[in-house]
């Protein structure tokens, strides 16, 4: 598979309504009707948001033909969080080394000249 997957997840979560839907699904499955309740929007509009979340792999719909409850796939969310956290940790490690470099630099280092010449 391509890098498409992660992009879709990021894009799906770019919308505040969809983030809200994901947050509510985190506490349990819900039907489209239940999800639509707090919003001043049609079932159709909510279904559209769900379709985007579904395409990104963030939610699935139950097989129950009548209710088709919406289920949050927490693993996809976790995978994304894990990547961002790993990236963050690598940056933090790098900047801790920079902390050490900065601490070892002599005090009163000459400032670059106002003209911006290289040191």
């Amino acid at each position, binding site marked *: 598979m391509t*890098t498409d997957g992660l992009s879709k997840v990021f894009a799906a979560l770019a919308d505040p309504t969809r983030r809200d839907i994901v947050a509510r699904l985190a506490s349990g499955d819900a039907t489209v009707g239940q999800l639509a309740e707090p919003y001043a929007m049609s079932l159709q509009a909510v279904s559209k948001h769900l379709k985007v979340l579904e395409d990104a792999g963030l939610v699935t719909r139950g097989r129950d033909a009548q209710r088709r409850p919406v289920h949050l796939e927490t693993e996809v969310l976790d995978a994304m969080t894990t990547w961002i956290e790993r990236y963050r940790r690598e940056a933090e490690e790098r900047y801790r080394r920079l902390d050490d470099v900065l601490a070892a630099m002599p005090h009163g280092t000459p400032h670059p000249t106002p003209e911006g010449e290289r040191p």
Partner: protein
Amino acid sequence: MTTTTGTRIDIGTDLPTIVITREFDAPRSKVFRAHTDPDLVSQWLGPRGLEMTVDRWDCRTGGEYRYIHSRDGEEYAFHGSFHEVRPEELIVQTFTFEGMPDSVALEKLVLEDLGEGRTRLVATSLGDSFEARDAMVASGMETGIVEGYERLDEVLAQQG
């Protein structure tokens, strides 16, 4: 996610950006010099466990750079141009992983004087596509692009 000393990461949703924010207990002049002096850069820029070799580092407006990370005979080289360098304040540069030579990110480093000898660094990387940006986040390039996506493959495959 936000702390005063830890690194903060923000992933753009409208644009393929990664924004890194970090504060340092050092004045702006020192943080700037640690980015422009190749001898200092080589001490911190390389990832852990990889050897960092600076091939070229001419950090001034119109200058260029190239560096190599190596481990067990494998080499990962990166290069780019310094587009705008303003002492103590700003470095705008391009960034290319030579393994993907057609892809280039635009990077902007802003140093903010917080007073009392402290500095805030904000590094923004704008990828040339969401896919390229996501590959950066998912792998960190040097640690293997494939690994992260294999894991997502597994997760997505399980869903049927």
